[in-house]
């Protein structure tokens, strides 16, 4: 087996490090070196006990105010809306096609005024999202970004279905071309960020049909089924 050593490529750089043999000594030497090794180990642990500065714990709920996620951390898909509240999504479906497990559903409609195809609802299923970032990468218009807000635990998995766009209507660039503010208002329709209970089964979710069914269902598309207006303040009370 050892002849393989010679056959290694890059022989100039190829060093081999071999594991050391564990030595056995006489009875008493064994006992004393054994006790010495135990004491050395105890010294290491005692060092940490006696130096409170080595404690590295970050106390999460207490440090919420100062906790800052890394800028690239991927925890929540968001649609970028500019200062006027407009997004650039055209409903082109590229993100949907690239999503590995169809967590993105782009529902389009034709505009009531201009009749053009445009974004109605941008539905994102956080429950199945793998945060692989492909959608953000492939978007030709830079519509999406991954946000670092990770606090998303809920009691009901239906709440993981989000509508990312704030309004249904043409993208920012197209809307800017419309001069008349009255017409602009007609062209867009509001959408909450949360779309309400959408059936969980993937088959039903696919397509507009399910959405319409949900809208006509018990709670309607806007308010959500069971709600807590406190949102993020909730966790402060938990303390």
């Amino acid at each position: 087996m050892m002849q393989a050593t010679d056959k290694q490529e890059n022989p100039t750089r190829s060093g081999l490090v071999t594991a050391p043999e564990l030595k056995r000594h006489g009875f008493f030497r064994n006992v004393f070196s054994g006790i010495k090794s135990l004491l050395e180990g105890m010294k290491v642990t005692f060092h940490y006990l006696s130096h409170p500065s080595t404690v590295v714990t970050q106390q999460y709920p207490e440090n919420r105010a100062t906790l800052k996620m890394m800028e690239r951390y991927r925890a929540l898909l968001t649609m970028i809306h500019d200062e006027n509240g407009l997004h650039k999504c055209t409903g082109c479906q590229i993100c949907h096609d690239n999503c590995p497990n169809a967590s993105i559903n782009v529902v389009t409609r034709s505009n009531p005024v201009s009749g053009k195809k445009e974004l109605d609802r941008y539905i994102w299923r956080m429950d199945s999202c793998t945060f692989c970032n492909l959608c953000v990468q492939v978007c030709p218009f830079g519509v999406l970004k991954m946000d670092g807000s990770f606090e998303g635990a809920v009691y009901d998995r239906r709440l993981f279905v989000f509508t990312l766009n704030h309004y249904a209507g043409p993208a920012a660039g197209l809307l800017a071309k419309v001069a008349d503010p009255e017409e602009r208002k007609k062209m867009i329709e509001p959408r909450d960020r949360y779309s309400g209970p959408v059936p969980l089964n993937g088959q039903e979710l696919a397509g507009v049909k399910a959405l319409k069914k949900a809208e006509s269902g018990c709670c309607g598309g806007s308010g959500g089924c069971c709600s807590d207006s406190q949102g993020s303040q909730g966790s402060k009370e938990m303390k």
Partner: protein
Amino acid sequence: MGIITEKLPCYIEPIPGGSLLLTSMDAVINWSRANSLWPLTFGTSCCAIEMMMATGAPRHDTSRFGAEVARPSPRQADLLVIAGTIVRRMAPRLKTLYEQMGEPRYVMATGSCAISGGPFMYNSYSTIRGADEIIPVDVYVPGCPPRAEAFFYGLLTLQKLIKEGESVRRPGERRKPVLSALPPGITLDQIRAEMAAVLKSDATVNVEQAAKKLEKESQDGQCESADGCCCSRT
């Protein structure tokens, strides 16, 4: 659950002042349960590593919550963290584990796989699409995998559920508190303001309606809809 939580309330309730006693009993019992969630050492895949980061890494340290006593035996555990994918072969075992746990037991599904099958949702002949198809889940923690802080947020959410949703008056039933309809970090006011900014006057009507609905529901304290948002367990 023993005598205290099962039979006693029936006797105490009729006594004058018994109701008050029960309420304070609730407070104490729920406090102890919420603060002593011993997890089962159970993890199937990637999420287990992040869970270990949360429970094991000194930086995060679940022992602050009293939840570092990971029990290898389901009999002694209170919290079953489903960390990772559940496949068809594992499903009966998961059910057994859940059944072996003594009441009160709580289940937390962390990560996309445990919530919905996640990356393995489609075209997989083996992956269960969501652990709640097998056992009832109390709290869902999104992420793939959720980071340690998200895990703690889930733990806090669970504590809230225990403190608000349990009572000795109705043993075995856990009432989920009013659900958070909005994504975390977003308040209704924020949406209202943003919407108003974009859509001026007439567009806000829709949001106002939603707000009224929300307020009404939160006053009622529970959901009226028939689709079972407020899951109770037997």
